[in-house]
């Protein structure tokens, strides 16, 4: 059997794994903030915030993430804005995935029945209170599954950051292949690591979803992955 010489690489790999996770989590937090701000702004009555939000969303959804990354890294410094690579990564990923997330937020808010808005108007809540106290708590459970999709895509897009000199998991795998040459070992291992990471995120999102639903008075059993989920039996048991 070939000598894998992996022992010497373990520290580098762990450092790369840390960068991957770190960038994913920070960018996800940034993306959620961007998604809520843009998603709410894009459905306001006032034309100025609505237009600005729509332009940002379409711009960041409609152009390549890689080009955005380069743009923040190479073009902005020309105008005197210089950021370290980590900030650029969080910024670019946050805006790009936040733009997709804004559509998720907008859709989930629109999915809350009109009756809930009317109930909150009849109680004379302010527009901000309607959103914060009534509409958002009901739309968040609807956002979580599509957010989970975006989170996994975000994780799997992070290898792009080696182009702005951040040494992530994929970077070290490539280094290893260059110097040791065991591509039959390292790339299958890399696939497994990404899968484990994304499945961990998925499980975490399931917990969030279950908690959000419990808060709406619809307690759900813990998600079992292979369970058949046909049309649900309607409604909770009436008391």
């Amino acid at each position: 059997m070939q000598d894998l010489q992996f022992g010497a690489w373990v520290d580098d790999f762990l450092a790369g794994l840390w960068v991957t996770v770190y960038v994913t989590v920070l960018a996800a937090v940034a993306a959620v903030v961007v998604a809520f701000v843009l998603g709410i702004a894009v459905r306001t009555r006032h034309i100025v915030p609505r237009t600005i939000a729509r332009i940002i969303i379409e711009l960041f959804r409609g152009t390549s993430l890689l080009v955005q990354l380069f743009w923040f890294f190479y073009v902005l410094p020309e105008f005197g804005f210089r950021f370290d690579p980590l900030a650029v990564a969080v910024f670019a990923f946050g805006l790009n995935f936040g733009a997709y997330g804004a559509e998720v937020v907008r859709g989930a808010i629109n999915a809350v029945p009109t009756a809930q808005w009317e109930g909150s108007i009849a109680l004379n809540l302010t527009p901000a209170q309607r959103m914060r106290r009534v509409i958002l708590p009901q739309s968040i459970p609807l956002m979580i599954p599509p957010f989970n999709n975006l989170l996994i895509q975000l994780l799997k897009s992070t290898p792009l950051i080696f182009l702005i000199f951040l040494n992530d998991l994929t970077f070290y795998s490539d280094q290893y292949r260059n110097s040791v040459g065991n591509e039959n070992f390292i790339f299958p291992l890399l696939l497994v690591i990404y899968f484990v990471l994304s499945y961990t995120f998925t499980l975490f999102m399931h917990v969030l979803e279950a908690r959000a639903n419990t808060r709406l008075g619809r307690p759900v059993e813990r998600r079992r992955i292979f369970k058949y989920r046909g049309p649900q039996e309607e409604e909770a048991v009436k008391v």
Partner: protein
Amino acid sequence: MATPETTTAYETTGARASGEPMIRFEEVLKKFGDLTVLENLDFDVAPGERVTLIGPSGSGKTTILRLLMTLETLTGGHIWVDGEPLWHMPKGDKLVPANEKYLRQVRKKIGMVFQQFNLFPNMTVLENVTEAPIRVLGKSRDEANEKGKELLERVGLEAKYEAHPSQLSGGQQQRVAIARALAMEPRVLLLDEVTAALDPELVAGVLNLLREIAETTDITMLIVTHEMHFARDVSHKVMMFDHGQVVEHGPPDKIFTDPDHDRTKAFLHAVIEER
């Protein structure tokens, strides 16, 4: 105008004959696109008066309630609530379209109970009742909880403070919705087909609760219902609508037993036949 038909029960709460109307519709016009729902509509409701709106669906009854609750915008004319224009605000000596801040000021006086309850599923029963008193009326949590529990007890739900709306029957949910509306201490209560979505066996309980509230408070009520017995019991005045117009109005005894118009006769015949 509007004298209660059963003088004994309503003596203390009946409509005042004089003074400003609680609600006044003045040449009200409401269109949805090209469809005219209300046109040239004028009527007054006195403080403490309970008025039932009857008529076929599409006749504009629910639209009247929704205009008062500011859930629909007014196309033309004026609506006055307690002497103040609802959809317009005074600016100099002119009336200009109301902004949200002004609407909130006038809306304070009005509460509504919906056909589908519209409870907030993200809150417990007690939170549904206390949310607006805390956030809008600025009550302390303790004060709101105390008042909320009192109201829930009154509607027969003292055992359900911590339940979620989804755990209640339709009748119980509607009782919570009634308590929630009353918690805001409205001067005007709008009841929009509040028993239409309930199982038949739960209807009587909700109607009895509303009868009790009608007898013990002097809240002005506008009621849209197909429950003619209930309408007859609680209202001082019945207004028959068709095609966005008042066909006729009068005390319930008159309207239900001896209506003047054929349209009213045909409608009542159809509704009572159905029962």
